[in-house]
């Protein structure tokens, strides 16, 4: 009896304390594990967010630095242009200054002569200096000096000199002299290798600056050049390639992620979709470009004097080849600034437009440059119209090819990845199937997670042991009952803990299902919108074709300043 009492007191305390401690420890560890798990998930999400934010920051920083560098470089290049070729500027200003001064007869001939002779000393290699000496000698009736100066100007740059004096003769109303200078100019031309200043001749023709006779002469020469170039093998294909590049340069480079935020986040082929959107947006840009060129009436200059002066200043300021390397760098800086610091996009644009600043181009490339890059080629809207009208068939072929290429690049399937689930849709038509699939996938994951949350082997052993102890009570006494009860209590507590864990798993997967379903629905909705958007932009290709087909070359030469009627001969 006494031994039973001793065992009773000693064992109860020990087992109770041990069980209590064990229960407490298990509870604590379990809570800590859960807390660590949830912290890990949160940390992982934050890390992903941080990485994205960091990547964006780096990209934005690089762009900002490139932008700032391009702006600084642009200023430097302009300063270098000013310092290296600045002394040309004075000579250039005097070209039209001399003509206008002699118009109103305000300057004495000696002053003109002295001024131009000083310029001759200041610019040893420049073609315009002897040309101005010749001009002042001509105004001062000094034939001998004029001839010698002209010979020198011709030696320095025959083509520019011929064009310069053709325009001056036109300004003075000496049509025969104008025609002879133009003859000389055309004799020097090779349609395979034309200098950039040929656009000045085109400008003069398209704006009706030349007289009827000279204009017809130019028009015939242009037709002959095109015919000659068309004899080359692969001519049409070259045109198509030139125009493809020209049209492609109008493709915008826009990130559409703001409008399609869910697709941007959940769609692995988003960059291809974004590229496809930009590709079809090219049609709108091309339509606006051509529409802008052909819309409205072009007002001719009020007098032939102003028109010729404008052309003269363009001829003397824009086409000096010595400046070309710096002008190309300046152009590159302009692209970087326009693309907001995106150097790759700027390089791509520069590659497509670089031919506009080539030293020499063939006549059709000259037309392409004039039509697509008027700001780099320095042409007027009338010349743009003329160039587009003459290139119409090539533009149509290039546009058809480009349209097909852009359509081919539109991804057939939109892939969607939400957490571990992936699916794809073409136009969002399989929304019900995808939702069911997503639900099944999450249910499967949930079942797997629930399967993990179960009583372990130890629990089952302890449970069996506890039950045996309870049954053994009848033969071995109260002590075993207590041990069995303790075991069963421990297993019960563990079971309750597992039930709580399972409830948390169910809640977590319910939230996941809800969020994933919403994300998938949003992706499907955006896919439908995206397809509609692409179809709408793609449809504009038809409007471009219709606009181009409505153009004919004959319509696009402005009326002459002379009071003569233009008669078209179709033969």
């Amino acid at each position, binding site marked *: 009896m006494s031994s039973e009492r001793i065992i009773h007191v000693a064992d109860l305390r020990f087992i109770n304390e041990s069980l209590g401690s064990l229960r407490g420890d298990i509870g604590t560890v379990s809570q800590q594990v859960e807390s660590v798990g949830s912290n890990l998930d949160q940390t992982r999400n934050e890390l992903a967010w941080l990485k994205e934010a960091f990547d964006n920051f780096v990209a934005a920083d690089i762009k900002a630095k490139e932008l700032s560098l391009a702006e600084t470089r642009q200023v430097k290049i302009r300063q270098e242009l000013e310092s290296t070729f600045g002394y040309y500027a004075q000579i250039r200003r005097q070209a039209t200054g001399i003509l206008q001064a002699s118009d109103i007869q305000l300057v004495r001939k000696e002053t003109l002569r002295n001024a131009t002779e000083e310029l001759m000393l200041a610019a040893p290699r420049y073609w315009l200096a002897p040309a101005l000496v010749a001009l002042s000698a001509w105004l001062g009736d000094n034939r001998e000096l004029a001839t010698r100066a002209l010979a020198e100007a011709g030696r320095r740059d025959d083509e520019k000199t011929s064009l310069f004096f053709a325009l001056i003769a036109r300004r003075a109303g000496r049509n025969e002299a104008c025609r002879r200078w133009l003859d000389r100019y055309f004799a*020097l031309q*090779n349609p395979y290798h034309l200098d950039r200043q040929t656009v000045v001749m085109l400008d003069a023709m398209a704006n009706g600056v030349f007289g009827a006779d000279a204009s017809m002469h130019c028009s015939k020469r242009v037709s002959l050049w095109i015919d000659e170039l068309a004899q080359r093998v*692969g001519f049409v294909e070259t045109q198509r390639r030139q125009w493809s590049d020209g049209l492609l340069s109008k493709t915008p480079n826009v990130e559409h992620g703001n409008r399609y935020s869910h697709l941007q986040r959940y769609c692995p082929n988003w960059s291809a979709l974004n590229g496809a959107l930009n590709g079809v947006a090219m049609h709108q840009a091309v339509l606006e470009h051509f529409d802008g060129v052909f819309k409205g009436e072009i007002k001719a200059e009020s007098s032939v004097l102003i028109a010729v002066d404008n052309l003269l200043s363009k001829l003397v300021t824009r086409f000096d080849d010595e400046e070309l390397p710096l002008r190309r760098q300046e152009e590159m800086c302009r692209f970087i600034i326009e693309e907001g610091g995106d150097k790759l996009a700027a390089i791509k644009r520069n590659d497509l437009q670089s031919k506009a600043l080539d030293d020499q181009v063939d006549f059709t490339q000259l037309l392409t440059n004039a039509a697509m890059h008027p700001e780099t080629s320095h042409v007027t809207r009338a010349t743009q119209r003329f160039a587009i009208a003459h290139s119409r068939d090539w533009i149509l072929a290039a546009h*058809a090819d480009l349209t*097909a290429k852009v*359509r*081919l690049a539109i991804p057939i399937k939109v892939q969607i990845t939400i957490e571990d689930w992936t699916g794809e849709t073409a136009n969002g038509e399989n929304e019900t199937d995808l939702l069911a699939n997503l639900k099944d996938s999450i249910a499967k994951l949930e079942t797997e997670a629930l399967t993990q949350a179960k009583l372990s082997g130890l629990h089952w052993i302890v449970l069996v042991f506890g039950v045996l102890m309870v049954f053994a009570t009848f033969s071995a006494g109260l002590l075993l009952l207590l041990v069995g009860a303790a075991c069963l209590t421990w297993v019960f507590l563990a079971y309750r803990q597992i039930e709580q864990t399972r409830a948390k798993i169910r809640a977590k997967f319910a939230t996941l299902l809800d969020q994933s379903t919403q994300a998938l629905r949003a992706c499907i909705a955006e896919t439908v919108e995206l397809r509609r958007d692409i179809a709408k932009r793609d449809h504009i290709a*038809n409007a471009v074709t219709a606009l181009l087909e409505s153009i004919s070359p004959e319509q696009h030469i402005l009326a002459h300043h002379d009071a003569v009627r233009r008669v078209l001969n179709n033969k």
Partner: protein
Amino acid sequence: MARTIMGTKPHETTPLRTKAVGSANTKLEGDALRVRLRQKRSGAYVEGMTRLDAGTHLHGAHSALAAQALMDLIRQELPDVSVEALPIGIVAKCYLGVPYEVHTLSCAGCIIQHFKQGEALPHLMERARSLAQHPEYAFIEVYSSRLVTVTTNGQTAIIDI
């Protein structure tokens, strides 16, 4: 730049088109072949190709006869193109209805096949699948290195692959 007319020998020669493009005995290649393939297709050819899935072509002997007739149509349309440069197949939108999506005429085996959504096309034809379904195009000619899209009025466009 001034061109050399007299005196010195020109340092570059420009090849000129001395023969009419596509004469029967000329083997077209390079740009000349591209120019030929770019030419507008005839109404009869386009009509023949667009009737590829007119129901009767679905079964056995009919299918073989129809495919042979279409092959003849291709040879008539491109008589000056050498056999190896002819299309390896035609892909067009299938109007048999769901689940059929596109059909193909394989020139090598003279076979017309109809493909369901999600069903893979023969290797080289697969790349024309999306274009074939575009409403602007009547059908797509598939060549080994390019695709030629043809509209209902015979206008073409070339995509180099």
